[in-house]
């Protein structure tokens, strides 16, 4: 029985289904001054319901990889397979959360949340309860008629999380979503993301340059090398959940932080003894 599952196509070794498979992904940008080699032969399997963080030095190709996964960008070589089908354009199973909430300033909060439905020509009606519950959960109930400029940075990013979760995508891609927030708001957002992830069981791929944030959130942390981005090492984070902000100051946590920072700096993993 277990063997049969293990042999199935699209299933990983330990039996969980693969949500996304990144196979030999290479990316060159063509520029006026020549080619920029952004990614080189990236291979990764992301399991359904897994939380994967991608970290690496600035300019190493984190965004390039994520935007490739979203189907918004082409790849030069290799392919990304989502639920068994190669990604060739934006897919309904995917939701994106951008750096700086990226709300539409001419729409109020509720109209912003309705935006994906308008584009997808989907009725909001059946999702009404879900949206209200999400708004409650992130503390935005009662702000439906406010415009983005009337909301704080943290509130805007929470609104964009609701916008993303509202239509129930399976896979969520986040590109440094909290990079512009202050440290306290960031902690708050990380706790919220952990909670939502534990409740919904979504597959989340989270790009960040903040190592603590990556370890706090992720099941696995993928470290990329400087340009061209290659996978330097994949760290398993087997800390129990739910994790607390306090734990980020504990010795085993800090040990992990140092290990990962060292790998980012040198581009190779050397275990600390």
């Amino acid at each position, binding site marked *: 029985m277990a063997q049969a599952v293990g042999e199935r196509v699209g299933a990983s070794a330990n039996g969980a289904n693969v949500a996304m498979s990144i196979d030999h992904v290479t990316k060159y940008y063509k520029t006026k001054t020549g080619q920029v080699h952004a990614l080189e032969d990236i291979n990764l399997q992301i399991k359904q319901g897994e939380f994967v963080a991608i970290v690496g030095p600035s300019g190493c190709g984190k965004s390039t990889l994520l935007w490739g996964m979203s189907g918004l960008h082409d790849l030069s070589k290799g392919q990304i397979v989502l639920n068994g089908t190669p990604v060739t354009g934006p897919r309904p199973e995917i939701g994106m959360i*951008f750096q700086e909430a990226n709300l539409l300033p001419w729409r109020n909060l509720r109209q912003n949340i309705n935006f994906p439905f308008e584009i997808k020509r989907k009725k909001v009606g059946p999702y009404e309860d879900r949206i209200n519950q999400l708004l409650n959960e992130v503390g935005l109930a009662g702000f439906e008629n406010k415009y983005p400029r009337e909301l704080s940075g943290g509130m805007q990013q929470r609104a964009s999380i609701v916008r993303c979760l509202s239509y129930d995508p399976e896979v969520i891609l986040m590109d440094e979503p909290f990079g512009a927030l202050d440290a306290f708001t960031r902690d708050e957002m990380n706790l919220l993301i952990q909670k939502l992830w534990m409740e919904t069981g979504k597959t989340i791929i989270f790009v960040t340059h903040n190592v603590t944030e990556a370890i706090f959130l992720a099941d696995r942390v993928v470290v990329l090398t400087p340009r061209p981005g290659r996978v330097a090492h994949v760290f398993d984070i087997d800390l129990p959940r739910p994790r607390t902000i306090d734990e980020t100051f504990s010795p085993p946590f800090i040990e992990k932080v140092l290990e990962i920072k060292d790998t980012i700096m040198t581009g190779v993993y050397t275990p600390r003894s």
Partner: protein
Amino acid sequence: MASELRETIPTFGEAGGEEGGAGLTNWSALTGASTAKSAGEIGGLILVAVLLIGGLELAVRHFNVAPYVFPRPSDIGSSLLNDFDSFWPHMKVTIRELLVGFSIGASLGIMLAAIITQFPYVEKIVTPYVLLLVTTPMIALVPLLMLNYGFGSTPRYIAVTLAVFPMVMINSATGFRRTDLAKIALARSYGANTLQIFAKIRFPLALPMIIVGLMVGSIFGLLTAVGAEMVGGKNGLGNQLQVYASLIRMAQFWAIILLIALIGVSIYVIFFWIGKRWASWQA
């Protein structure tokens, strides 16, 4: 056009930062003007009007200013009341010229701006010619147009259209050029097609500048309509200015000037409120 996204990861923070751009005006010109709100401010406004008009009246009487130099404000006022019935048909003519020319010119301007900004090459070629239209006073064409179209309304419709079109076009183009890649990426991530991206991202982004263009365009249209009527034709407020000036009936002359100003101020107020309603997110 889609390729601009396929190869670019939007950088954030500087999104939509093309303020001012190549447009002739910018949004702050529209909303920047502070308007009287409190009772005190409105009272002040009225007081200034009373002092101004009363002062003029006294000065004209005291210095025995000849009516052909400047009539008494009270005479202008009574002309407005007594002669309005004879002014009104002409006012309707001017307003109709403005509405017809504005509708055609503004639609053309917005459409052309929307299309042209999608093709940088075409835009570079066309823009200098549009600027030429902006800077050429269209009234100058009226005698020529009259040779072809006679003394009717047609030459004026054409002149107003030609005055409105480039103003709307150049400002709208500035608006449509503000492509915010992050917002386009957002729409595309939901599977938006080109038309949806236009209707739901590009157009709303451009709207504040379009409204500025419509406002400036309509004021230019009014100036051109009145000017064209002064150049030739047998009706309209501009024509009546000529008539009353030649008869040295200055109370009527100034009453008509006030009516033209009234149309201009109404245009400003209308677009101010449209801007407040549809573009206040910008401020």
